[in-house]
């Protein structure tokens, strides 16, 4: 038994195994190498470390996802420091850390670098609280670093505070395999970067930020022709209108990069340089054009070559026509994300039901879609539900709130209903547009595999939420905003909340009484009421965030958070 446990990698399998009996529990605890904690407040650092003594890799998630959109006030929590301190004392074998939506300080970075002699990889996603000063210490002290990936993090430095962290990497040959800093607002020392790349023979993934020009990029590519993943920076030349002399060398650089499978960046793309990527198009499986303001005409010659594309992120500037071109070529597409250039409700809609329909007809293997648009029809959504049977993730954001089907004027109930009915593998759903309780009735009836549900400006009454809480047994993460669900609906989920990671409800119809009721009946649930205005002492609850926890209320809650 214990031997086979070292081969089990899936955490869900391991969780099941640990329930069998005490000795299996212990054996499992001793052999678990990767620890995944989906909510940093569900367990204390001490407890996690005491149970799992041999962890090499940690994934830790903090703030609720709606924090990305400004709904969680500053200072709410998710501090990495207590974890860093506990692990520095408890684990010497730690090699990898991945943090998402945590507040990480420069001191934390320093502590990591100094405490773990075998540390190999750090990934920070949507984190905040640190600066280039922390990165400098980390780069300098982590002598065996293989991976440093900064993904969509927030930096708060002034220009004059920026530190030249790239220069701090070891002067000898490094073990670096992945270096990503495309979210960094400040420029890095380019000469130092080039030299670093030159002495990092293991480098496979490099993602630079928008300060890197196309010619600088070329120089880096020449140093690292073995790259598999490339974030291309600005992809323009600082000299407006010129830069033609950079085109041919750039094509050569791409032609020499025979291993490239992933391209991103294009932050300020000058379309004259796009043809340079043709040599690699037929090999790439991931193309991120979500910062590239290009038209359909500019996209077509590129996408025409991308037969093997599986993941495509794009701006809606390519319009329905661009999406039709994608549908015509990318028969292997698994994931599509269409982002809006202008994320407001009044912006001109560049993509619509036409683009969605085209994609559904051309890309039958589609598993995941995120689609921002100004208007949609039930028919297009229904069509997708029938054509794309492999859908696991369906996130449709009709940006104008409460907007009905723009052909029929009907609510979008039937479209979303078709999705949950026809897409049997669906685990993640985000809804939008005008939706009545009927839509939630469908979700409750058919969404038996749904784990994550995102609701905004939808529903008519408590019944909407009740359908979901009573009907979706696999529901783990539920985030709701601006929907008319009140205390009775909240209480209808009492039987299920211990099975969930969290529930978020903001600008709904909840009152303190209802939330207290839940808190009383479920002692292992932490019920946080978050106020936007400290002085408001109303009965109405602005924001509710509740989650199961083994350790009860946290001790770092700021004044605007009341734990019931």
């Amino acid at each position, binding site marked *: 038994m214990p031997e086979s446990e070292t081969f089990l990698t899936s955490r869900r399998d391991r969780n099941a195994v640990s329930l069998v009996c005490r000795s299996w529990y212990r054996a499992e605890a001793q052999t678990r190498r990767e620890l995944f904690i989906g909510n940093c407040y569900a367990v204390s650092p001490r407890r996690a470390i005491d149970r799992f003594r041999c962890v090499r890799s940690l994934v830790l998630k903090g703030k609720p996802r709606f924090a990305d959109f400004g709904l969680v006030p500053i200072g709410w929590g998710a501090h990495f420091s207590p974890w860093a301190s506990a692990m520095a004392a408890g684990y010497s074998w730690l090699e990898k850390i991945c943090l998402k939506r945590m507040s990480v300080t420069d001191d934390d970075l320093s502590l990591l670098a100094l405490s773990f002699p075998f540390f190999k990889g750090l990934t920070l996603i949507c984190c905040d609280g640190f600066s280039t000063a922390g990165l400098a210490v980390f780069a300098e002290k982590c002598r065996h670093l293989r991976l440093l990936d900064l993904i969509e993090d927030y930096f708060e430095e002034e220009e004059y505070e920026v530190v030249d962290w790239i220069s701090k990497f070891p002067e000898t040959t490094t073990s670096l395999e992945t270096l990503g800093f495309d979210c960094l607002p400040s420029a890095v020392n380019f000469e130092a970067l080039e030299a670093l790349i030159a002495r990092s023979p293991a480098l496979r993934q490099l993602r630079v930020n928008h300060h890197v020009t196309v010619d600088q990029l070329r120089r880096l590519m020449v140093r690292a022709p073995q790259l598999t993943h490339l974030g291309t920076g600005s992809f323009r030349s600082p000299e407006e209108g010129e830069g033609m002399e950079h085109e041919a060398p750039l094509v050569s650089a791409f032609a020499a990069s025979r291993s490239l499978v992933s391209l991103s960046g294009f932050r300020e793309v000058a379309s004259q340089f796009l043809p340079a990527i043709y040599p690699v198009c037929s090999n790439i499986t991931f193309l991120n054009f*979500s910062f590239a303001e290009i038209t359909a005409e500019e996209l077509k010659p590129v996408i025409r070559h991308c037969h093997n594309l599986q993941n495509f992120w794009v701006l809606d500037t390519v319009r329905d026509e661009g999406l039709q071109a994608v549908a015509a070529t990318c028969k292997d597409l698994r994931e599509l994300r269409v982002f809006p250039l*202008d994320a407001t*409700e009044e912006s001109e809609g560049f993509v619509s039901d036409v683009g969605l329909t085209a994609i559904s007809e051309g890309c039958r293997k589609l598993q995941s879609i995120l689609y921002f648009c100004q208007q949609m029809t039930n028919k297009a959504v229904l069509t997708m539900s029938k054509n794309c049977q492999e859908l696991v993730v369906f996130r449709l954001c009709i940006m104008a*709130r409460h*907007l009905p089907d723009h052909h029929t*004027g009907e609510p979008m109930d039937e479209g979303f209903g078709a999705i949950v009915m026809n897409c049997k593998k669906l685990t993640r759903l985000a809804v939008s547009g*005008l939706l009545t309780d009927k839509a939630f009735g469908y979700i409750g009836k058919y969404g038996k595999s749904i784990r994550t549900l995102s609701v905004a400006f939808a529903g008519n009454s408590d019944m909407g939420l009740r359908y979901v809480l009573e009907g979706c047994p696999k529901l783990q993460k539920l985030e709701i*905003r601006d929907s008319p669900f009140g205390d009775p609906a909240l209480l209808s989920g009492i039987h299920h909340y211990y099975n969930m990671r969290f529930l978020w409800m*903001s600008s709904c119809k909840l009152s303190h009484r209802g939330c207290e009721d839940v808190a009383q009946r479920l002692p292992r649930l932490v019920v946080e009421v978050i106020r936007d205005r400290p002085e408001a002492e109303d009965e109405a609850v602005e924001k509710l965030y509740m989650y199961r926890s083994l350790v009860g209320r946290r001790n770092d809650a700021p004044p605007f958070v009341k734990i019931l």
Partner: protein
Amino acid sequence: MEEEFRGGRPQLFDFITNGRDWSDKGGYGAAEEKSLELRLGLPGGEDWSAVQEKREHPAESAVSPGHIAKIPKSTNMSASSGAKRGCSDAVDSKPEGTLADKPTAAAPVVGWPPIRSFRKNLAGTAKASAESPNRRSEAEKKLENDRKGLFVKINMDGIPIGRKVDLKAYDSYEKLSLAVDELFRGLLMAAQMDLLAATTHSTKETHVISGLLDRSGEYTLVYEDDEGDKMLVGDVPWDMFVSTAKRLRVLKSSDLCASPLSPGEIGRRTNDS
């Protein structure tokens, strides 16, 4: 289901009244709204780090009383009507069968559409932006400073990671000096021990960092003012210092130039570390 939807309608009129009262209160200065409009990002959709300020001062559209189709969808500020607003948004809008008519200017809602901040200022001005997507604007920072105290960054020679001090928490140079000593004493010792070989275990004696203000100590406290000049701390009245200091530094006294460039202004030797 249809009945429930229709049943909700009588509530419609209550909420319109509430909504109108709430919107009439308005009450936020035009100056703040202007400062919001100057920013590149949308007022309602910035990243979480700036949201506190913006939620205090939502950009509001003018509300015409006859406009029933869409109640001003402002931010979650008014807690008492917040929950009701949420309901009214769903209930009142778009009765079944009619197409939406978009208002000319709905007040933006925080976090909608759900796009992360660094994707938000793409429309047109990505290139020449002095404000990069992942930073807060000057207006937001100023608002935060006014409300929350005056935090300035302070760095000390030999310690790679800076700290922040809240100048509003002190009322004199002496108190500031003591605070700086407390802040860095432990770190300085740790940094110095870092340099020692692992075999030597020195006793835990902590050196007080003193003489910051009178150049008598090993370190001297200096600051950079709003004009970028580097000044000795202590030369101007405290209140003036608080209002002009932008950042602090604790320098090795031996690194300071013997003769200042101008009264109060200091220079540094070129071979400092």
